């Protein structure tokens, strides 16, 4: 033992006069760090009640509960997380995973209670002393728990596609589809938004497990046209997708297409268990007018429920507006045929080239069949009615698209102006661009519409692709006059459109007459909306039939008109949208079933 060792501890006395570390008032002097994972906050204006926080919580600490004042609307379940602080471990995975970023943490960490039941609360709804705290843990933009980046879809390059009508989108392969399906968080918000209320999380989970048979069964529960829907659906579900709040929504439409593409048509009966349907045992017959999505959907569900069903179609092929209103590069005809061929194997008859009212009357159908479903679609065009719009070189987009599909020769001009900013306008623009390219080797087509670019009704990818194909798009211009010289169209006069709707939300465009422009054209296509052709309704029926003030047939929630035997659905009820048509057909089929059962 050295003396130094005995004495060295005494040296510490030199610290005796140092300032102590003691915190004077620990309860108030020590707020958590700016980044502290304290108690939870929830911003209700952002929260969509998707339940991902509940899903990731390894402690089962989070319940999703209804909260007063939170309505259930599209894309928001109206549920909010309730956190049990008898379970929470403050790992903040719920904060990191929250797709909207609504769930955050404050830096408060003191909560004393005598009663353990107090420790359950709904952040954002229950009053807490930390709810207005501005610091605390938030989701870092640098890390990802969920995958917000969509798997890129292979598309044919603009230079390879702008002359032909081959399909642009190639579709996912297995690896890509599983990768994309793994992004899904199974919240199910999309199901409510989908007009057909498809079990979207269900079939995506089946893709993830690589069980495509199950996926197809789920698809056919409420949608018998997956090939069509998988290509041209307006995919409202993707807008509701929780991932959309912080990145790309799940490619629900492409995944649906993937399922249908992978399974050959001849396997459908076996997978769906429709090989041995009841054969005319019910002895009830239903006529369907129109082989469009609504008609096919109604016919399919009627067929599997055992009804003898026959479809009457005015045009020479099935698909309705899906075939005659949508260009082939978006929806190849053989894919429509695949869905319809399967329908035919179930014993559904389709009689083409038969226009109701001309070849056979509605009364005859009524006499011959127990019920009639009419899904006749919107095949007529609407005119802008600007001066000069009655010229013979002013066309309707719907007519022109139909002509293209029918294979008729189109007299394509060198300079074309399309009026309209919806998807149909883009379709005709791009179709004409292709035809121009074939004929002249260059594209001189211009599309103009009232709406500003940000609010154009067409899908963004349509606009982008149209521009890739060298079409010019000039948004926010209102057509004023079609200039005609020597009986020939020379162009379109437009003036700047400032707003489309007035304060009440009515269509009432305002123009700045000072700003004018002239688009050169020798052919003009109007694509500002579609009208229905109800000429098949005879006068007697028209007199009995109840109509809405807007001129549509009034139907109940089963799409049954006031004539009990007549069911109406599809575009003529809901406006142009394929998935609504399919949903209408499905509901109407169930309605016909219950109507005939109760008769």
């Amino acid at each position, binding site marked *: 033992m050295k003396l130094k060792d005995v004495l060295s501890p005494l040296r510490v006395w030199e610290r005796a006069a140092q300032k102590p570390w003691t915190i004077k008032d620990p309860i108030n002097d020590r707020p958590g760090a700016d980044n502290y994972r304290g108690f939870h906050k929830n911003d209700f204006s952002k929260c969509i009640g998707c339940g991902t926080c509940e899903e990731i919580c390894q402690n089962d600490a989070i*319940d999703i*509960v209804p909260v007063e004042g939170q309505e*259930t609307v599209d894309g928001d379940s109206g*549920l909010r997380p309730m956190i049990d602080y008898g379970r929470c471990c403050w790992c903040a995975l719920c904060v990191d995973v929250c797709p909207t970023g609504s769930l955050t943490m404050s830096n408060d960490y003191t909560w004393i209670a005598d009663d353990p039941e107090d420790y359950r609360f709904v952040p954002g709804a229950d009053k807490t002393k930390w709810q207005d705290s501005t610091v605390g843990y938030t989701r870092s933009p640098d890390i990802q728990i969920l995958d917000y980046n969509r798997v890129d879809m292979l598309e044919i390059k603009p230079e390879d596609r702008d002359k032909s009508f081959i399909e642009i989108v190639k579709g996912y392969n297995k690896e890509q589809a599983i990768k994309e399906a793994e992004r899904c968080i199974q*919240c199910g*918000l999309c199901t409510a938004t989908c007009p057909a*209320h498809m079990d979207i999380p269900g079939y995506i989970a089946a893709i993830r497990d690589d069980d495509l048979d199950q996926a197809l069964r789920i698809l056919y529960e409420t949608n018998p046209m997956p090939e069509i829907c998988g290509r041209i659906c307006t995919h409202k579900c993707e807008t509701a997708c929780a991932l959309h709040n912080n990145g790309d929504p799940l490619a629900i439409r492409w995944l649906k297409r993937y399922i249908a593409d992978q399974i050959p048509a001849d396997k459908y009966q076996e997978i769906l268990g429709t090989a041995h349907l009841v054969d005319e045992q019910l002895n009830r017959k239903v006529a369907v007018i129109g082989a469009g999505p609504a008609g096919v959907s109604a016919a399919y569900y009627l067929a599997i*429920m055992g009804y003898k069903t026959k479809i009457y179609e005015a045009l020479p092929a099935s698909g309705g507006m899906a075939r005659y209103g949508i260009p082939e590069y978006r929806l190849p005809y053989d894919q429509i045929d695949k869905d319809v061929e399967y329908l035919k194997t179930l014993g559904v008859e389709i009689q083409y080239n038969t226009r109701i009212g001309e070849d056979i009357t509605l009364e005859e159908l009524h006499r011959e069949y127990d019920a009639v479903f009419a899904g006749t679609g919107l095949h007529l065009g609407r005119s802008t009615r600007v001066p000069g719009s009655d010229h013979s070189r002013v066309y309707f987009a719907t007519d022109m698209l139909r002509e293209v599909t029918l294979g008729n020769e189109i007299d394509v001009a060198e300079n074309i102006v399309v009026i309209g900013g919806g998807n149909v306008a883009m379709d005709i623009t791009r179709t004409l661009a292709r035809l121009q390219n074939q004929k002249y080797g260059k594209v001189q087509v211009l599309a103009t519409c009232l709406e500003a670019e940000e609010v154009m009704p067409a899908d963004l990818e349509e606009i982008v692709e149209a521009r890739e194909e060298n079409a010019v798009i000039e948004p926010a211009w209102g057509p004023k006059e079609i200039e005609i010289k020597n009986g020939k169209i020379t162009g379109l006069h437009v003036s700047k459109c400032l707003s489309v709707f007035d304060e009440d939300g009515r269509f009432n465009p305002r123009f700045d007459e000072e700003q004018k422009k002239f688009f050169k054209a020798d052919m003009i296509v109007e694509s500002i909306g579609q009208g229905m052709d109800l000429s098949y309704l005879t006068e007697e029926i028209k007199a009995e039939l109840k109509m809405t003030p807007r001129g549509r047939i009034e139907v109940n929630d089963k799409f049954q008109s006031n004539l009990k035997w007549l069911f109406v659905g599809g575009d003529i009820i809901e406006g142009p949208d394929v998935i609504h048509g399919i949903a209408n057909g*499905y509901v109407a089929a169930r309605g016909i079933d219950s109507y005939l059962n109760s008769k």
Partner: protein
Amino acid sequence: MEQLIKKIKGMVHLRAYGKQRDDLHFVTVDKAQLEMILAHLKNYEGFTHLAFLQAVDLLEEGKFRLIYMLYNYSTNVNLGVNVLIDRDNAEMNSIHKLWAHGWQYQRELHELFGIDFPDSPRVHESFVLEGWEEMPPMRRDFDTLEYSNRTFYQRPGRSTNDPAEYMKEKIYKNYPAAPVIRRDNE
């Protein structure tokens, strides 16, 4: 390392070999030859450090996989020696004579997996459990949540909703359910 694997191949029936990283290799040997190969590895190949001995329950195959993780101080390589044993009446030879702390792992495996190691000291002593009456808890077929719910009181008052179901209830309650396919034989 390749040389060593060749050597092991020459000595015992090498069922499988895998390389996870440069410093981590796995071999699978027969149950009967395990002690021999472990002794060889320890005494002649420099794998003197037993990092752990553990088991994996392969319920579907009706087997336990034991893993003896060895380490060589001079080459800085970990070698995991795997051996498959039957799950029913699981039994294995003890290695407490090779490593003085081997008995600890064997006691743990006996308690948590129900694998017996005859001759291993204190193997029947309780390790972490006290008064345990169920099957060994680390076996795959033991459901810990079910046991917890049955034994400990969960605080009541919790209920959750599925957003999809809830939205259906709120928004489209009347939307018809998928129709039943009417088949001939039904």
